[in-house]
Each structure stands twice: as structure tokens, then as C-alpha cells.
């Protein structure tokens, strides 16, 4: 019995790292541009469909598809911020929200029209491989996905920590006026940030494709999941997003093992309510 729970928890933690990468994209965008990307999950299912098309056309492994899909999503994100959202940065919060809700509605139903309501997936030849460590049995796909998510997250951390562009973006987030005063091209940096966020979710989408099927209707659930993870971890905290992704992954898996897999998001929402009540700034967030 204990073995079962242990396996569920570890498997959940591995999936959770991929969730963390998805939420990282949202956190980066919110932390810098101060716009909540309400089309996050819908953009991710879009990226997942992109990887499926690549797999069908060129037999590409989703792991390899990460590169082209993330590049396309980066460009789309850059364009979306520069062309559409930028005009809304100074508008009231609810107007920004409605703009992205509109984009989300168009995306999710556009996918429904283009790909139909049925679940699609990609078969990789190592899908059923697994490793055994004592009582612990780990699926190869889960390990690969979690490892890749960690590597990409580490690259992102390094980019923000050490690169000049990363520092410039952090400067915009810290002090909008100051960044303008010292001559940073804020418009470009905002668009860049949105592009990076979109590339993150594209990578997360490709990795998730190793683990789950995709349907258009999952878009809103992923958006919600990303929000919950970011709020639980603390808005703007990158480590927090990764940690809380892990936590949510474990809680989903435990809900599946203890009760019923379809009740998993109830656990996640319960986690959200608890955090909002007792630690509104999130696990690793700074006090407002």
C-alpha cells in the first residue's frame, strides 16, 4: 500500500516539474509586463497540437519538436505583445483580462474547429519503458520530461541572472520609469518577455505531450492550473513557481491514488484556497 502511494507521489512530482515550467512562463510574463496571460493554457494546447502535427508529418519526437515549436511560439508571443497587448498595458486590469479572455476563446474554439473534440496523442517508442529502484518504478517518459523541464528552467534562471538582456528585463520589472530613464527599450523588452513566456509554455506543452493526451477543451483547465501554481508559489517568484508546480503535481497524484482521478483538481483548488487564506503572497512570494 505504501509502495503505491510512494510511486504516485514521485510520479506526480515528476509531472509537477513540467507543470512548473508551464507556470514559469506565466510568472515571467506577469512579473515583468504585469499582464495576466489568461490565454496561457490555450496557447499551450496550441503548441501541443503543433508538436502533434510535426510528429505526424516528420515523425519528430516531441523532445525534438521543442525547438521549432518554442521558436514559433516565441515569435507569436513577441508579436502578440508588441502588436496587441502593449496598447493595454496602462489600461484597467479588467480590460486587459477581457482582451486575453477574448484571445483565449478564439484560440480554444479555433482548435476545436481545426482538430475536432477528440483526444490526440503522440506515441514514442520508449513510452512503456521504466526503471525500477527497489519499490519505486519510474516511467522513462516521466523522467525524461521532468529532466528536460529542469534543464530548461535552469537555462531560464541563468538567462535572467547573468545575461545583459535578462538583467534589462529585470530592471523593467523592478522600476518601469527608471528603466525608461536609462534608455532601455521597454516596448521591445516587454515583447521579448512575452515571447520567452510563450516559449516556456511551448516547451512545457511538448513535454506534457509525452505524458498525456490533448483535447481543445483542456486549454482553460491548464490556464487555471498555471494560475493556481503561480499564486501558490508566489507571483513573480520563479523558484516558487517550480516548487509549487511540484506540490500541485504531487497533490494531483495523491488525489488520484487516494480518491478518484477526476477529483484531482479539487485538491488543487483546496490548496489555492488554503494559500490565499494563510499566505496570500504565496509560498515564496515577497510580502506586498
Amino acid at each position, binding site marked *: 500500500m505504501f509502495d503505491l502511494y510512494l510511486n504516485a507521489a514521485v510520479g506526480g512530482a515528476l509531472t509537477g516539474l513540467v507543470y512548473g515550467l508551464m507556470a514559469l512562463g506565466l510568472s515571467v510574463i506577469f512579473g515583468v509586463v504585469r499582464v495576466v496571460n489568461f490565454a496561457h493554457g490555450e496557447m499551450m494546447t496550441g503548441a501541443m497540437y503543433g508538436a502533434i502535427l510535426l510528429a505526424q508529418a516528420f515523425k519528430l519526437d516531441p523532445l525534438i519538436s521543442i525547438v521549432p515549436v518554442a521558436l514559433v511560439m516565441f515569435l507569436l508571443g513577441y508579436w502578440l505583445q508588441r502588436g496587441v497587448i502593449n496598447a493595454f498595458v496602462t489600461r484597467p*486590469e479588467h480590460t486587459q483580462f477581457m482582451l486575453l479572455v477574448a484571445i483565449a476563446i*478564439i484560440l480554444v*474554439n479555433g482548435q476545436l474547429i481545426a482538430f475536432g473534440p477528440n483526444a490526440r496523442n503522440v506515441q514514442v517508442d520508449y513510452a512503456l519503458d521504466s526503471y525500477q529502484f527497489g519499490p519505486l518504478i519510474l516511467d522513462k517518459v516521466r523522467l525524461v520530461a521532468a529532466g528536460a523541464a529542469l534543464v530548461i528552467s535552469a537555462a531560464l534562471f541563468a538567462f535572467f541572472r547573468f545575461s545583459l538582456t535578462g538583467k534589462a528585463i529585470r530592471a523593467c520589472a523592478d522600476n518601469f520609469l527608471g528603466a525608461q530613464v536609462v534608455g532601455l527599450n521597454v516596448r521591445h523588452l516587454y515583447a521579448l518577455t512575452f515571447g520567452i513566456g510563450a516559449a516556456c509554455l511551448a516547451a512545457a506543452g511538448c513535454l506534457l505531450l509525452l505524458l498525456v493526451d490533448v483535447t481543445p477543451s483542456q486549454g482553460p483547465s491548464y490556464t487555471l492550473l498555471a494560475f493556481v501554481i503561480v499564486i501558490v508559489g508566489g507571483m513573480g517568484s520563479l523558484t516558487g513557481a517550480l516548487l509549487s508546480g511540484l506540490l500541485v503535481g504531487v497533490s494531483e497524484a495523491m488525489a488520484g491514488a487516494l480518491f478518484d482521478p477526476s477529483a484531482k483538481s479539487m485538491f488543487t483548488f483546496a490548496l489555492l484556497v488554503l494559500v490565499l487564506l494563510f499566505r496570500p503572497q504565496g509560498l515564496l512570494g515577497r510580502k506586498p
Partner: protein
Amino acid sequence: MSGLFAGLPRRALVAMGVFLLLLLLAPWLVNAYVLSILVVVLYYAYAGQAWNIMMGFAGQLSLGHSLYVGLGAYAAAAVFVKFGVNPWLGLVVAVVVTTAMGAIVGFLAFRFGIGGVYFAILTIAFSEFTRIGFDHWLWLGGSGGLFLPVANLSSNDLVNLRGAPVMFYYVILAMTVAALAFCRWLLASKLGYYWQAIRENEDAAAALGIHVFRYKMIAVMLSSAMTAFAGVFFAFYYNNLFPEQIFSMGRSIEIIIGPIIGGLGTLFGPIVGAFVLNPLADGLAELLQWVGIDVPGVKQVFYGFCLLLVVVFLPGGIWPMLARRLGLERGH
């Protein structure tokens, strides 16, 4: 009552009167199909008006109003199906349940200073949480749905809310008109001014001595109580309830698109929005079907583009612009 119309130009009164008369005579003027669309239009006008109290008047963005529709619908339907309780008494149960829910959501959010986007996400989380709960609540049918005994369409029984579409049409028309008058009264009351002060600047409102927490609570409870009516109507009009549908985020968004397109915070915005949006979407669906394209999702894409266009080009909504053009504004 005369205060309701104070300051309106004569042509606005005439336009309102003619519009209301046309709606009252509609069952004789249009066929059953158009009437069924009108019922949907009025349903969204009513639900939008209820939502508008929270967002348009008090500035609290709720993206989870399907929670209150669903709870109201399930409460009244459950006591009707399980215990044979009359729907109007069921309505009381529904209002109590949804108001309590609204109070819980409001208390958790406002007590701990959760606002803006966080509040919106909390409302979604609550409706999703409830949806999953109802999916697993087998006493009420679970995800298989709850069904009401189908009405005998030839006789109208207003007491038990069983009857022909025409009866439901008049019920929802009466509800919409009553909601409009009620909101008109609210907006001009002290409460309405407090809400608008909170909406514009919460800190300034608090500094003026407005008990912000109390009035935000009143907004969320009133809005959820009013939305319960919409839920009860939905249950008895459609006779079937599925958690997957009634609590879905898509339903919440359909409720709020009308007021936003019509004009957030205005009295006629929700009505204009519903009247513009639903017939357009249904017309589009008809047209596509006629051309031979029958794919799900087209209507929603259309909604998305409408919302996008209004948000980008007409941030105030259709009604304020329309009222100015037609000279229907309240006198200065």
C-alpha cells in the same frame, strides 16, 4: 416610482415604451423559434444585469457566476424532484443557498484583501470546485445529470412553473424588467454611490469613511441572490441539469460578455449586449448550417471576436455610444 424615470428625455421614454410593448406582444408577432431565441436573450440580459452589480457597480470582477446559476438551479430542482417542493418555495431555498455561497466567496476574498485578478481567479476556482463536487454527488445524479419531469406543453401551471414556452417567456420578461428597475433604484441609492466610489478608488472610498468590506459583501450577496433566479428559471425551462455544463467557465463567460459589449456599469448595457449578441450568434449558426458548414465552436469564435473588437475599439461598450447618438441620455 416616478423617480425611476426622472431626467429622461421624452424620446427615451417613448423608445422604452415601444420596446416594452413590442416585447409584450412578441408571442403574437413572432414564431416559436424566434420566441425561443428571445427567451435566451432575456435570460442573458437578466443574468448579465445581476453580474453587472458586482463588476459594473462595485468593480469586483467575478468570472465564476456560473457557480450561482448552477447552485440556484440545483437547489430548486433538487427540492422539486426529491421532495415535490413548489418551485417558488424552491426559489427561496435557492436564494438562501446561493447568497450563503456568495457570502463565503466574498468573505474569504475581501476579508483577506484579495482583489482584482486574484479575486477573479478565486471565483473561477470556487465554481470549478463546485462543478467537480456535483459531478461526484450521486444523490443529485452526479455527472449523469439531474432531470425534471417534462412539462405538459398544452397547459400552463404558473404555480408549479410547468408549461408552454410562452409562459416562460413572460416569466423571464417580468424578471428582466424587474431587475432593470431594481438596478436603476440601486444605482441612484446611497448604496449605489458607495459602490461606485469603491469601484473608482477603494482607498479613497475607505478614507471617506465608507465601510468597504461591508459594501463589497452586500454587492456579492445581492448579485448571487439575483443570479439564483436565473438558475431556477434555467432548471425549469430546460428540465435537465449537468454539472459539466451549468457550472462551466464557458457559461460564466457567456454571462459576462453581454454586459461588457453592451456597456459595463450601465443599466441598459446588459440588455443591449444580450440583444445584439445572441441573435447575431444564432443568425450566424443558421447561416453556416444553411451553407452546409456544421462545426461546433463557430459560435464561440464569433463571441471571441465580438469581445475582442469591443475591448479594442469600444472600451465603453455599445450602449453609451448608442445612447449619445440617439439622444436617449438622461438630461443634464
